[in-house]
C-alpha cells in the first residue's frame, strides 16, 4: 500500500471515531434536554479563547505532561506503572514537608522543593521496584494498591501539625490544609498577553524533548527499550533487568513527584492555591497516565495529548453556565479516549490480516 493511501486511512479513521464519540456525547446531552452546541462553545471558550484561559490550560498541561513522561520511561522498560496518582501525591507531600522544614531564600527553596518532590515520588515508586525485583510481586498490582495507601498516608499527615498541618492561626477553622507557601518561594508565573502560567511549562516541554532524545539516541535509552522489547535478549546482552527496571520505575515516580511539587509551588488556583489540601492530586496522576498511554508511550505526542486533556479540564469550568451539568466533560473525555484507541487497534489488526493474506498468496 502506498504511503499516501496509508495516511488517508489513518486520518479517516481518526476523524470517524472522534466524530462518533462527539456524536454520542451530543446524544447524551440532547436526550436529557440540554443543548449540545453551547457546551462545545463553552469548552472552547473556557480552555482557549476567553481572556486568560489558555494560560490556565498550559498550567494544567504541565503536570500532566510530566506524569506522562515518567510513564513513558517506565513503560519503555516493559514495566506497567499505574500508580502515578499516589507517587504524585507523596512527592507533593514530601516537597511541602521539607520546604517548610528547611526554609531558606526564595529561589533556592524552590529548587529544593522540586528536588524533594522528585525524590519523594521516586521513593514511593521504588517500593514497587523493591517488591518487584526482590519478592517478585508484579508491579502492576503494587503500584495500583500503593495509590490508596498514599491517599490515606497524606490524609494522615494533614491531621498533625508536626507533619503537614498548618497551625491554627493560618488556616480556617477545622480546615485540614498545610501552610501556604510564601510569595518568594513560589515558582514564577509571568504574565504573557494576559495569560499567566508557571515557568514549569517550559521545564516540562524541555524535559519532553530530553526524554525523546534520551530514549531514541543514547545507549541507556537503547538498553531500556531493549529490555522492554525482549527481556531475555537484553539479559544476554548484559542489561540487568533489576538495575534498569528499578531505575526506570524510580524515574517514573520521580517525574510524578516532580509534577506534584510543581503543582504545589506553581499551580495557583488550579491546584490548592499554594497549599497542600485534601485530595490535592485531583486525578492529575490518573489523567497523566492516560495521556502517556494515549500517546502510545512516546514523549512528543504526549505534549499534544496533555494539552488536549488540560483543555477539557479547564474548559469544564465554563460548561456550568450553559445549564448543562459540567460533569459532561468527564463523559466527553472518556469517550474521546476510547475513540482515540480505536484507529491504532483497527490498523494493527488490518495490517496483520493483509500480511497473512500476502503470506498465503506467496505459498
Amino acid at each position, binding site marked *: 500500500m502506498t504511503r499516501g493511501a496509508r495516511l488517508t486511512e489513518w486520518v479517516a479513521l481518526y476523524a470517524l471515531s472522534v466524530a462518533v464519540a462527539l456524536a454520542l456525547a451530543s446524544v*447524551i446531552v440532547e436526550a*436529557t*434536554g440540554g443543548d449540545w452546541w453551547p457546551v462545545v462553545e463553552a469548552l472552547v471558550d473556557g480552555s482557549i479563547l476567553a481572556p486568560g484561559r489558555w494560560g490556565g490550560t498550559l498550567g494544567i498541561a504541565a503536570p500532566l505532561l510530566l506524569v506522562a513522561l515518567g510513564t513513558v520511561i517506565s513503560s519503555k522498560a516493559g514495566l*506497567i506503572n*499505574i500508580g502515578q496518582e499516589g507517587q504524585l501525591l507523596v512527592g507533593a507531600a514530601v516537597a511541602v514537608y521539607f520546604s517548610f522544614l528547611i526554609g531558606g531564600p526564595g529561589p533556592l527553596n524552590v529548587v529544593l522543593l522540586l528536588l524533594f518532590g522528585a525524590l519523594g515520588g521516586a521513593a514511593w515508586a521504588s517500593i514497587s521496584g523493591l*517488591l518487584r525485583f526482590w*519478592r*517478585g*510481586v*508484579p508491579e*502492576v*498490582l*503494587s503500584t*495500583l*494498591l*500503593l495509590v*490508596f*495507601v498514599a491517599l*490515606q*498516608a497524606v*490524609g*494522615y499527615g494533614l*491531621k498533625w501539625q508536626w507533619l503537614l498541618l498548618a497551625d491554627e492561626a493560618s488556616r480556617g477553622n477545622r480546615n485540614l490544609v498545610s501552610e501556604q507557601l510564601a510569595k518568594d518561594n513560589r515558582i514564577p508565573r509571568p504574565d504573557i498577553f494576559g495569560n499567566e502560567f508557571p515557568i514549569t511549562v517550559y521545564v516540562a516541554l524541555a524535559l519532553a524533548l530530553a526524554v525523546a532524545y534520551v530514549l531514541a539516541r543514547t545507549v541507556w535509552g537503547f538498553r531500556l527499550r531493549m529490555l522492554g522489547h525482549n527481556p531475555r535478549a537484553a539479559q544476554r546482552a548484559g542489561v540487568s533487568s533489576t538495575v534498569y527496571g528499578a531505575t526506570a520505575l524510580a524515574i517514573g515516580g520521580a517525574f510524578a513527584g516532580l509534577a506534584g511539587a510543581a503543582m504545589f509551588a506553581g499551580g495557583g488556583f488550579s491546584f490548592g492555591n499554594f497549599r497542600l489540601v485534601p485530595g490535592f492530586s485531583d*486525578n492529575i496522576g*490518573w489523567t497523566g*497516565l*492516560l495521556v502517556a*498511554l*494515549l500517546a502510545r508511550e512516546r514523549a512528543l505526542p504526549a505534549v499534544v495529548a496533555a494539552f488536549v486533556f488540560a483543555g477539557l479540564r479547564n474548559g469544564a469550568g465554563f460548561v456550568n453556565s450553559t445549564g448543562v*451539568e459540567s*460533569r*459532561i*466533560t*468527564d*463523559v466527553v*473525555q*472518556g*469517550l474521546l*479516549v*476510547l475513540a482515540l*484507541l*480505536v484507529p*491504532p*487497534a*483497527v490498523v*494493527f*489488526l488490518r495490517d496483520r490480516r493483509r500480511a497473512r493474506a500476502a503470506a498465503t498468496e506467496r505459498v
Partner: protein
Amino acid sequence: MLIDFFTAVGDVLSSESTYINGALFAALLAYAATGEWVAERSGTLNISVEGMLLSGAFAGILGYHISDLIVVGLVFGVIGGMLIAAVQAEMSHRLSADQFVVGLTLNILVFGLVGFLDREIEPQALRASTVEIPVLVDIPLIGQALFGEPWPFYLLYVLVPVSWWLVYRTRWGLELRAAGENPQSADVSGIDVNRRRRQSIYYAGFTSGLGGAYFLFARIAAFDDSVIGGQGFIAIAAVIFGGWTLWGTMAGCVLFAGALSFQLSLQGLGYELNTELLQALPYLVTIGAMAIFAKRVRPPAALARPFIRGLK
C-alpha cells in the same frame, strides 16, 4: 490507654451493627470479587470493576425508578454492569487496545456519566424487604447479619459456589484458566484465548452489576456518585490477597469488609482511632501478603499480558 483500646474493641465486637454493616460490605465486595476473580484467572486484570459496580448501582436505581420493582432494578443493574464489560472486553480483547487505558477511562467515564444522569433524572428507590431465615436468624450477634438480610443478599449463596463450579469443574473453566496460565499453548490446542477472556469479563460485569444494584437496595436506596467509593479497588485487592483462589478471595472480602465496619462502629460508638490506617489496611495487608507469599502463591502466569497470536 491499652485498657481503653481493649474496651473499645470489645464494645465494637459485641455490637450487632458491626456484623450487619460487615455483612453488607462483604457482600458488595464478594459480588465484585467473584467476577474479578474469574476475569483474572483468564489473564485479564480488569480494573474497570469499580466502574461496573457504579454503573450497576445507577442502572439498578434507574430500573426501580421506572418500574417500582426491585427485580427490575437488579436486572437493570446486571445490564449496566455488562454494558461496561462489553466496552472493556471488546476494546481490550478484540481490538487489542491497552486494557489499563480502557479500564481507567471507563472508570472516569462511568463516574462522569452517572453523576451527570443522576442530576438530570434524580431517580429514587426503596430498600429491598428483608427476608429472615427462621431459627438461624436468632443466632446471637451474627444471625441477623447472615440470615436476616434484604433478599438480594441470598443470591450470593448461589453465585459463589456456581462460580467455583464453572471455573474448576467445567470445560469452559479449564479453557479459561489455560488462557490465563499459558495462552500460547491454549491457542495451539484450539482455544480462542481472547474469546475466553472476553467471556470472563462479561461474567465480571454480570456479578459486579448485580453487586452494585444489591448494595443500593440493601443499604441506602438513594444514589450519589460516591456510593461505591473505591470498593471496586478493594475487591481487586481481595482477589490478589486471596492468592487467586476463590475461598481466599472470599476471606479477603470478609476481612476487608470487617476492617471497614470495625472503623464505622468505632466512630459510631464515639471512639477516636486512626481512621486512615484502617482505610489503608486492605491495601497494606494485600501488599504485605503478596510480598510474603509471592514465591509460593503466584498470579496466573499471563495476568495482564495481552494475547496476540504470534507475539509473546
